[in-house]
């Protein structure tokens, strides 16, 4: 076991991926000498060369579009989109091409690409640097979408994503990049916890709280605070946003009878709505209260001085839990 930050864990995972397959290449803006604006690729160009760790022109559609051609040529591109709000110039290539080429070709062309996106708020940034666009991609068939929440998951999930034959959107909780945790660097990829599986991260009996990415820490903090008040919350880290792995969620909700979904992204037509619908379909007779959502507001992301009001926090999660318990 080694203690490392989540950001360093992704770096270590990328290093493993580069070591284990010569077809793996990294592409992105400022990922070479600089090591990325968050230093996630720090040192990788130095060790693997600028033919494999490529500083690209400043053009997101170009990054994804050329990665498609490189994948057709047999490479496994790992693209970095510098910030969540900068993915939209590449949206057409992702949604109209990356997602559809396997289907269009009736299985003849695979695009084993990873698109890494630091996402979410809480770092005091200017506009376009704090968004949560994951639902746009989860809505699109042909893509898979995951988000890591802990250093250990970050280390293994990035390697699993690179090894996968699917095109994968890999959402990194940027405000958790500096949080530390234990990582078992000696484990094997084949035995790692499955990529597209949710995971119980805190057992409880009174209500089920669902979260992913940066909100997992918030949900765990809420569970700890609730415990002090004698309430027992079960927390599930969804990990995979498309496909969703909800069987463990259904099992939990059938026990607790209450379910709260937490995400930073706006609630309107978001992942929480899909999850609420499915939980309601599957657990209708077990539910003691409607599935509640704690989300960002249905507004554009606010200026940094207001983001603490916008972002779901421990108190808003507990408030929703209280409402669910008081139904």
């Amino acid at each position: 076991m080694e203690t490392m930050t989540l950001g360093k864990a992704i770096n270590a995972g990328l290093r493993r991926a580069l070591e284990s397959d010569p077809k793996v290449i990294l592409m992105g803006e400022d990922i070479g000498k600089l090591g990325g604006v968050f230093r996630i690729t720090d040192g990788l160009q130095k060790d693997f060369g600028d033919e494999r760790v490529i500083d690209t022109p400043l053009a997101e559609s170009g990054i994804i579009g050329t990665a498609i051609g490189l994948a057709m040529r047999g490479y496994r591109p790992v693209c970095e989109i510098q910030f969540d709000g900068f993915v939209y110039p590449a949206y057409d290539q992702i949604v109209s091409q990356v997602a559809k080429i396997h289907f269009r070709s009736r299985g003849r062309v695979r695009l084993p690409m990873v698109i890494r996106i630091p996402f979410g708020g809480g770092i005091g940034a200017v506009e376009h640097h704090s968004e949560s666009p994951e639902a746009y991609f989860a809505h699109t068939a042909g893509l898979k979408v995951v988000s890591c929440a802990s250093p250990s998951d970050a280390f293994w999930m990035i390697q699993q994503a690179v090894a996968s034959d699917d095109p994968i959107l890999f959402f990194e909780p940027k405000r958790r990049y500096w949080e530390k945790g234990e990582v078992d660097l000696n484990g094997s990829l084949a035995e790692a916890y499955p990529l597209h599986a949710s995971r119980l991260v805190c057992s409880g009996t009174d209500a089920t709280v669902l979260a992913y990415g940066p909100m997992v820490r918030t949900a765990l903090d809420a569970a700890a605070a609730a415990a002090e008040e004698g309430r027992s919350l079960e927390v599930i880290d969804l990990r995979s946003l498309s496909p969703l792995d909800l069987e463990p969620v259904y099992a939990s909700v059938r026990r607790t009878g209450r379910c709260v979904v937490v995400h930073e992204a706006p609630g309107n037509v978001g992942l929480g709505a899909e999850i609420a619908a499915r939980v309601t379909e599957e657990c209708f007779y077990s539910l003691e209260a409607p599935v509640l959502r704690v989300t960002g507001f249905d507004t554009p992301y606010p200026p940094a001085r207001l983001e603490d009001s916008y972002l779901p926090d421990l108190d808003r999660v507990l408030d929703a839990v209280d409402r669910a318990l008081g139904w």
Partner: protein
Amino acid sequence: MAKGAPPTPPPDAVGVGTELVQLLTPDGERIERAYDSSGTEYSVDLTDDEYRGLYRDLVVVRRLDAEGTALQRQGELGIWASLLGQEAAQIGSGRALRPQDMAFPTYREHGVLYCRGIDPIMPFGLFRGVDHGAWDPVELKCGMYTIVIGAQTLHATGYAMGIAKDGKVGSDDGEAVIAYLGDGATSQGDVSESFVWSSVFHAPIVFFCQNNQYAISEPIERQTRVPLYQRSLGFGFPGVRVDGNDVLATYAVTRTALDNARHGQGPTFIEAYTYRMGAHTTNDDPSRYRIASEVEAWQAKDPVARMRAFLEKQQLGDADFFAEVEDEAKQIALRLRERVLEMPDPDPLQIFDHVYPHGSPELDAQRDQYARYLDSFSQAPDESHAGHVPPTPGHHVQATGSVR
């Protein structure tokens, strides 16, 4: 004209000047050698059979294309994007490809597909609506039709970067990529990005732009204030304007550009100056936006008639030859027609196939659910549903989608 609109460009600002590379005049007179605006010389020295072969290609793809339009009119295709008038640009460039080269087409390159040896039923299946044009791009060295304008230029650039990474440039057996695009596509951001990328990464790629003068209804003046072939200079690689109705010139220019790319000399932009003689697609009505005299002027530059005139002047083809080619083209088209008519609608459950390389339990569940739903209609009528008319599985709905 709306307030603030730019003044009309000067006459011929984006039209034909002396820079046009031409090896066959519209009357079929052979020009021995031609030069582009940077002084590069172009010529061809083909065998008699090769000249005749190019003519045969032109006639066959024109005939296949006519079959596409006819089949659409008869309700057998949802839509057809005709290449009429662009045969020389497609055959000249398509035949210039070497076997190891890779093409990335738009959705109108039926002639290029033909040159790549792709079964002509493939684009017909796409426009009939039985699939999305699912040939194997890697095996056939030709990407799938790409309908989003300009998107494929980035795929082509990435593929070309991969060639360079694989060390497959710098020799006669090096590989090169050709990316097809139209005049409208030159306004797309993806095309500009592909120019930047191919330039800075020195990718072995040729951008082959068929300037057919119209992006659906919008004339070239709505896309550019400078001749398109000059566009690439600002990105750092050469641009050539070739007579797109001259199969010999397009062949010569494309072959040179591809060979330069495979030898490590980087990208070239080719503007094949041509004209879309037909509608944008069968859903279009060009009489709303262009005048008959313009079409007639281009009729006089017809690429097929030009090559025939050349063969006649050179005594490379007699009446029997031309009749034989006509007949061959007709037979190919008729065989294709029969096959198109026999194409069954796909099984509805195919919808769920190939979304992900290794399948999906979620889609398996949706497929099973839908299969049960479909099966429910094949069972004995249920009196509790009397009066309810279910949709007939496999009911054929004619596609009427539009392609930009």
